[in-house]
């Protein structure tokens, strides 16, 4: 299905807003869960305003609910948040924000804003503009919806149905799959890294506190970055099937091989011209 909007910046903003609103509604579930666990409305709101990273917030609420060890609960919440630091490494060069604005942009780093920024066509100033638009649109819409949802959920705790009955629990994984899709088609290395990352996390889940398995998946990226064999398999050396370039349901991002890995501008131009 071809995108009607030719402007990558507008398309990125539109996708970001759609995702932010869709995922942000689960702020209702967090607000309700936090108050049900024994937190105050203010505590739930401070977490959403400042920590602003869903999994960590749910982890802390679960620890408070257990009436248990708040130190362990805090540690697991921070561990869950550590992947945002790894995202930041990537976003720093992709977005190129400078100066004090970084203090605000840092707050906006989440799974969702990272995924939308990465899904944008790469290359040069237009690529950066689209990545910035996607990041900021996701940040803005998700931040507002998540915080409004937290407040509403905290005030109305107990009056909500289960998020599962609306299928909201599958919105997150489905959105991440859609956003990762273009990169999975880009190259064999990406597919291998994604598969290895998923297997590492699943294998580690029964043995680790929540949060650690996902962070451990970074080992897959480390392996691919260090192995000479993996370098030879980079998208520049072994491009994936070209495929119709307008195929991407998300942001037409299949046109962009890879922002910063080894795919050169020539590759990007080639894919674009094929569109």
């Amino acid at each position: 299905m071809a995108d009607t909007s030719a402007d990558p910046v507008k398309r990125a903003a539109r996708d970001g807003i759609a995702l932010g609103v869709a995922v942000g509604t689960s702020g209702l579930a967090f607000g309700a869960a936090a108050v049900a666990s024994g937190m105050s409305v203010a505590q739930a709101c401070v977490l959403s305003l400042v920590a602003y990273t869903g999994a960590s917030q749910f982890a802390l609420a679960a620890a408070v609910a257990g009436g248990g060890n708040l130190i362990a609960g805090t540690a697991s919440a921070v561990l869950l948040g550590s992947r945002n630091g790894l995202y930041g490494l990537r976003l720093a060069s992709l977005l190129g924000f400078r100066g004090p604005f970084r203090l605000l942009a840092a707050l906006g780093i989440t799974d969702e804003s990272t995924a939308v920024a990465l899904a944008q066509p790469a290359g040069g100033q237009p690529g950066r503009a689209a990545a910035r638009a996607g990041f900021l649109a996701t940040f803005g819409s998700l931040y507002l919806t998540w915080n409004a949802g937290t407040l509403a959920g905290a005030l109305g705790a107990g009056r909500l149905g289960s998020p599962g009955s609306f299928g909201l629990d599958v919105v997150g994984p489905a959105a991440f799959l859609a956003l990762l899709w273009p990169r999975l088609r880009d190259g064999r290395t990406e597919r291998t890294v994604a598969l290895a990352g998923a297997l590492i996390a699943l294998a580690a889940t029964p043995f680790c506190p929540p949060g650690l398995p996902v962070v451990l998946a970074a080992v897959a990226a480390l392996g691919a970055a260090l192995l000479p064999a993996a370098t030879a398999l980079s998208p520049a050396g072994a491009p994936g099937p070209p495929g119709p370039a307008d195929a991407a349901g998300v942001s037409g991002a299949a046109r962009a091989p890879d922002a910063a890995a080894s795919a050169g501008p020539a590759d990007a131009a080639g894919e674009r011209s094929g569109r």
Partner: protein
Amino acid sequence: MSATWIAVLVTAACCYALKLAGLTVPPRWLAHPRAQRFASLVPVALLAALIAVQAMGRDESLALDPARLAGLGAAAAALLLRAPFLVVILAAAGTAAGLRALGVA
């Protein structure tokens, strides 16, 4: 200050600090091609892991939730059919919600 408030404030401060630390790493630390490659592939590995854990994990164990897996399968089918983003999300949520409403899964 209650213990819960301390936990809330420490969590909030640390989560923000981690984000800022990643974003403000000096560029020269990432100048090496392998470091750039690592930074580029990290989100791929982490997002894939997140999909797997959210789809199949429950707290500290693996649990198969048929409705959730069917929803994710519907998303993958929509992506193969080149559906736009919102359609992918609606297909996933609608499939999971529908199966649960029918009591099938």
